[in-house]
């Protein structure tokens, strides 16, 4: 047993030594990895419209601007901000203004992220009901009357409340607080992700069932469905701070681009191109529709749009 003890001591000493070695690389570590203009990383959040931006930008950057490798990294909106801050990604092409805290921290305090201008698309979030239901019950279109109709929206998971179909986990939403602060008799259903929510709504729409949902524009699925917005108290600057006290509806958000500060400065043509990148809701929807509805690959969808819209994208390419 004595021998065992010696081995044990040696092992423990070895463990200790190993951790000392790990510690003793004792200089301050580098904090930044900076991308070069040869390689551009664009963050892609989970919704299809934003993927349309990224796919088209990637294709054009590679084919027309001459960037060697464009990486599209799947990152949800809030995490994308962290990636922009630490240089793991270079650009966000579509931000819905849902991260006020991170914006302040990274843009104003640490100056690691800079604004990249309008995407050209205006986003709007709201509470929507299908038109066939609103036609029958026009009063529903005012939030004050929602409780009267709550029973129509009951489901097997909402108890005696109405079911409110909620946003995907990473999306900007104040629904929880709106429902609480207006004492609405609704329970939010967590759909888990955008596609699951859209699928659920398409199914209900096809069956002409009543439903009320967190919904937004632009969205490719709106081409096939008639949805009407429920009026919430109007948005005013600062009315959703702190968010737990929110009583107002959602703003119209001109969607924004953001870049890593180093990339914006040293990114050359690639950064220039991404700053110029600006298109309309219809154009974005066209590409999004190809991806989501026709199930084309992102690359094929981008290629198809690029072929037909040279006049639009030519303006984005930096002059040599």
């Amino acid at each position, binding site marked *: 047993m004595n021998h065992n003890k010696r081995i044990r001591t040696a092992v423990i000493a070895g463990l200790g030594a190993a951790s000392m070695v*790990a510690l003793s690389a004792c200089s301050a570590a580098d904090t930044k990895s900076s991308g070069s203009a040869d390689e551009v990383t664009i963050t892609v959040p989970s919704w299809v419209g934003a993927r349309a931006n990224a796919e088209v930008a990637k294709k054009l950057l590679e084919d027309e601007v001459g960037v060697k490798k464009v990486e599209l990294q799947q990152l949800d909106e809030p*995490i994308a901000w962290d990636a922009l801050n630490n240089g793991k990604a270079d650009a966000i092409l579509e931000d819905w203004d849902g991260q006020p805290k*991170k914006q302040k921290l990274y843009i104003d305090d640490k100056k690691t992220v800079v604004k990249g201008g309008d995407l050209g698309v205006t986003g709007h979030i709201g509470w929507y009901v299908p038109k066939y239901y609103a036609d029958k019950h026009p009063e529903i279109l005012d939030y004050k009357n929602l409780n009267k109709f709550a029973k129509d929206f009951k489901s097997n998971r909402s108890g005696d409340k109405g079911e409110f179909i909620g946003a995907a986990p990473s999306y900007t939403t104040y629904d929880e607080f709106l429902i609480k602060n207006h004492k609405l008799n609704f329970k939010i259903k967590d759909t888990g992700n955008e596609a699951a929510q859209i699928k659920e709504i398409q199914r209900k729409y096809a069956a002409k069932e009543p439903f009320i949902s967190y919904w937004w524009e632009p969205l490719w699925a709106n081409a096939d469905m008639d949805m009407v917005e429920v009026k919430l108290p109007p948005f005013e600057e600062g009315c959703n701070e702190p968010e737990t006290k929110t009583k107002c509806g959602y703003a119209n958000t001109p969607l924004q681009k953001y870049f890593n500060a180093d990339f914006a400065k040293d990114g050359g043509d690639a950064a220039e191109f991404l700053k110029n990148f600006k298109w309309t809701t219809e154009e974005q929807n066209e590409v999004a529709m190809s*991806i989501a509805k026709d199930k084309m690959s992102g690359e094929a969808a981008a290629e198809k749009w690029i072929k037909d819209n040279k006049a639009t994208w030519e303006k984005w390419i930096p002059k040599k």
Partner: protein
Amino acid sequence: MSAAPASVLEKKDGVSPPGPPSSDAPGPLAALLRNPKAMALVAALLVAVVSALVTANGAWPADLTFDVRSPLDDINTWMAQNRDTHPVFLYFLLHISNTSESAVDGVLGALEGLGFIGVTVAAVLVSWYAGGANLRRRALALAGIAFGTFAVIGVLDVWEEAMETLALMVVCVAVAGLVGVLLGLAAGLSDRAERILRPVFDTMQVLPAFSYLLPFVLMFDVGTPAVFMATVIYAAPPMARLTSLGLRGADAAALEASRSLGASAWQRLWTARLPLARKPMLLGLNQTIMMCLSMVVLATVVGAGGLGDPIFTAISTLDVGLAAPAGIAIVLIAVWLDRTTAGFGERVDDAAPARSAFATRVVWAAMAAVIAGAAVLGQALGRTEWPENWVIDISQPINEVVGWIERELGSGIPVIGGTLTWANGFIDYGINPLFDALLATPWWAVLLVAGVLGYLAGRWRAAITVVLALAAIGAMGLWSRSMDTLSQVIAALVVTLILGFAIGVLAARVAWVERGIRPVLDTMQTLPAFIYLIPMIALFGSNPAAAAVASVIYALPAVIRITAQGIRQIDPSALEAARSLGASTGQQLRQVQLPLARPALLVALNQGVVLVLSMVVIGGMIGGGALGVDVVRGLTKGDLGLGLTAGIAIVCLGLLLDRISQPGADVKERALR
């Protein structure tokens, strides 16, 4: 634990040895009344039911909850602000972060340098070596699996993603393996270390992979380092556990022989104990690799990249066709790695005379030369990336099939209804009543029942753990969210156990069933949890039923396998005796096989519980709601307060479920042996 463990399934006195009830036993009711433990359980249940009926609302009282979210949010903000200025980060964490990142980049660079020809040749040769390095069937079959894996990865156009995943895997497996061996050595050689580490490993095995991610994202930010740390910590325990087991299980005679030859403690460790422990250690490595793969895929949620990426995208666009190539690649890599490491394990047992050290070295040198040659050939041909025209697009046909399934099987099939109808039925008659019952029962009655169950399974220690875990959930203000998750777990678990025991018994009794399902089970057990999610939305919609079905499928293979094994291992003479006494098939099963296999069934129950919980949590991504979606929201929104508290609640549920379903240690070992 010295006394034989009490069972949860059967209310029989735990001290009496398990065995078929003798014919002169009193009636079941009388037996129940004579049994103090059963009485305790019945009494606790009665209290719960009565109090539920009287109060009808059992929510955790508000004045017993504490605000843990605000301080967590403060920590979160502090971390974000100081991550690249504070000394703790600069001199410690960032080194880990940068080292792991450059290691992964280095391996990825090496893989890219080898090119697709080099990588494929290397994989084929390593597998061939694992299979015995000769021209027999096993070696060739393994080489074939390796070749097929990499060819399919290339053809399906996911080569680049696969290399990213492999690079991350190589680094994670290396570090997890090393950490595991060191901890295993400590636990194997020192009783005190074993006493300290054992419960830690036990607990870690219960925790769902998902709950590991958030703390590391907090410390390391999103990206490779966080994934690396979470994966290493998730995957190291099996290596450590089996190393320790191997060291402790070494044949005493061999050690004595070595000692009598005058070997020093170090020599004994190197020449006798470690070589004797090689087999369990390889088994541990195999498990570590599988857990790394599953975690690396899941970790795409926090920016790991690689093969998980298309799957994550596909979940958010419901594009099964997009996920399929990556999914197939993951399955193939899993099968390849599993068979190859298993191959190395079997080599240890080989009766064939081992080659001389020289011959082994020659084989290795030749392999290295061939790999280098292949890499150079690839470079010379200008082909390091998989050629673009060697690619087949399978997404279209797959999406068509999925579309057809959705349209045709969703609802409206006469008599059986269809998958959507089932999903609603499962919610209406399975999950909802359970949830309502759990919420209606006063919190103290839930604690009481859980405590009694814990006591029956593991005496005071388990009872206290269980009660504290539940109290922690309540104190964090997550009582009803947790009961929601718990109701889904229980509903899914019941289905899993019914199906699992039935199929397991069938497999144990009918040889061709066993032969037929074994490869299916093998494959299913290697699949990362993530893979199971996507088809579920298509079939069952976005709701808790979809998550529950995914977890049933995920947990079934383990339950079936353990059940079948347990029943098959019963002493044949017992069965023969019953048969000669004229027992019918049903009687044999009920009175001999099942009672004798009870320890195995208990292990199956425990495994089922742990697996179902981990999957139900991930099910938050497809509409499971409750705690799972809170963790996802916390991860994706960077809302630490929300994510961590939900994560802790999941851990508490894991402890609760594990402890009340855990057979005592001696039962577990007997069944696994």
